[in-house]
């Protein structure tokens, strides 16, 4: 068998594994529903200008707070903007912040987790102490303080969310790293003269990848909620309309006491659905990765 045929064989086997995973995933009720909802939102985010009837800058000042009609599917806001269109444009903000913040979170968490778990000793003690500290700090107040100091911009929000949420991932990755590090196959590798870099990339990373994957998904859900929360408190980036910001304005302009439900319901529902889709995907992945929950 030559090198080329080994590679072909490996690609084929990898394909089989992916198919097998897709088959198991497809059978999971939650996973499938989550994926369908998510696909729908991704579609909205990517093709917003083509789907939305108006843009966020189209203001119909003569028609503020108009109820849903054929002209404005979900009515208008205080400036007479089409809520339906705002909703569609807001998808992009939520998705971008969610995905980027989650990636940053997991990158920090994975780095800290593997480093602390693998090298142990004083490094581990210090990093873990730091992780514990960030873990118990009240997240939202910290985010509020940071966001208030740094000022409103989408990048600051992403940074603030990641800086506050990495410890959970770091903890989980660390404990997994610890158990992989103690395993005989890593010992065997060391006995063959493998260095730390080799072991981290060949053994530890592949074995924590499923976890990393699951945490990226779960963190996206958390980041979307966090972004919406900050925006709701008026700390959002005014140049990017988001669902949390819509609720902020709705609250500021007295939508509640006026009973303008079409301004309150849609943004919240959108946040819930998008977050729920990620939660369901995460839940499904957990069930697939963690066989203990599966029936024997």
């Amino acid at each position, binding site marked *: 068998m030559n090198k080329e045929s080994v590679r072909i064989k490996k690609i084929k086997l990898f394909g089989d594994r992916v198919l097998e995973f897709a088959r198991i995933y497809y059978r999971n009720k939650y996973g499938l529903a989550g994926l369908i909802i998510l696909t729908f939102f991704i579609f909205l985010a990517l093709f917003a200008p083509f789907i939305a009837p108006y843009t966020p800058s189209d203001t119909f000042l003569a028609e503020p707070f108009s109820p849903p009609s054929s002209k404005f599917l979900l009515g208008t806001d205080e400036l007479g903007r089409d809520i339906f269109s705002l909703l569609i444009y807001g998808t992009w903000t939520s998705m971008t912040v969610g995905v980027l913040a989650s990636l940053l979170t997991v990158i920090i968490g994975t780095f800290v987790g593997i480093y602390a778990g693998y090298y142990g000793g004083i490094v581990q003690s210090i990093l873990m102490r730091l992780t514990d500290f960030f873990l118990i*700090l009240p997240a939202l107040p910290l985010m509020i303080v940071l966001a208030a*100091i740094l000022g409103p911009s989408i990048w600051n929000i992403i940074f603030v969310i990641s800086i506050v949420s990495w410890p959970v991932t770091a903890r989980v990755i660390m404990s997994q790293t610890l158990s992989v590090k103690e395993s005989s196959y890593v010992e065997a590798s060391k006995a063959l003269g493998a260095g730390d870099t080799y072991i981290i990339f060949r053994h530890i990373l592949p074995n924590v990848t499923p976890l990393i994957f699951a945490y990226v998904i779960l963190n996206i859900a958390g980041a979307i909620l966090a972004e919406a929360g900050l925006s709701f408190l*008026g700390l959002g980036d005014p140049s990017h309309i988001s669902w949390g910001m819509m609720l902020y304005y709705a609250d500021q302009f007295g939508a509640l006491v006026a009973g303008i439900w079409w301004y309150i319901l849609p943004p919240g529902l959108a946040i819930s659905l998008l977050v729920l889709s990620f939660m369901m995907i995460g839940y499904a992945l957990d069930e697939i990765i963690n066989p203990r929950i599966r029936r024997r």
Partner: protein
Amino acid sequence: MGLREFVFKRLIDGAILFFMTVTLNFFLFRVMPGDPTAFLIENPKFTAETRKALLKLFGLDKPLWEQYLIYIKNSFTFNFGISFQYLAPVRDLIFSVRLLNTLALMIPATLLATILGVIVGTVAAWRRGSKFDSTSTFVSLVFYSTPVYWIGLLVMLVFAYYLGILPFRGSITPGIKYENVFQFAADYLWHLTGPLLTLTLVNFGGYLLIMRSNLLDVFSQDYIVAARAKGLSERTILFSYGMRNAILPIVTLTGLNMAFSISGAVLTETVFSWYGMGRLIYEAVNQRDYPLLEGIFFLLALMVIIANIITDIIYAYLDPRIKY
């Protein structure tokens, strides 16, 4: 290691965390971009004397390390200067009825959510695979995914706007004169219902999911099989063998979740205009009132640290295996 040693260790841990919090606070407001004097002193509303006094209080003319030492001293006495907005010492603003209001909301909400989550989670695990199980799991996922302030808005929309049985906002009816304590209590509780309901709904899902999965885990353990083999009644198995073990992680979780539920409380208080710390932090942010922000953040962090120490000690008391 005995319980006393354990408690001692936890107290030391708490002290370390306290110093880390102080340090973080110091760096956030001193080293972050911008001039600290602008953050803390440069308020057109302050008189020249006030500015001078504050400059001395913070030691802003001294080198950074000296400022840090002064800061630690000030933290012990909650001396964070003067609020831009209220022109009153931060200490007086945070140690006020607002703190009591926040505790009055948070403690019952956390307890209710825990109890509800534990009970429903137990039933779900006990009747694994039933309709009840799948429904409750799904409902908790939904609540987990829903922003707390939106639920607050919905609660008000339904109960205040449409049904008119709850007040819109605030913690008491403004301008009212109470004839006796009971009248006050009734009014207070009436206002508390909305935020309490909201916070409980949002938090209980997490407890439910964790209790359920803990209990399922415990049910698969050998000692449950052994308890069955011993012929113990289902009640004894569930309570004395199952829940007793499954509830342990919940205790830790409650401590950890303090940080989380404070976040929820901030948003809930904001939505309901509840006269508490959360609402105060919102106002401080909107007014860029940095001294106040600093004080509140410090207090909230401290509350979480203390809650953590207490839950750790309770945990150690409940679990005989504890040996750190």
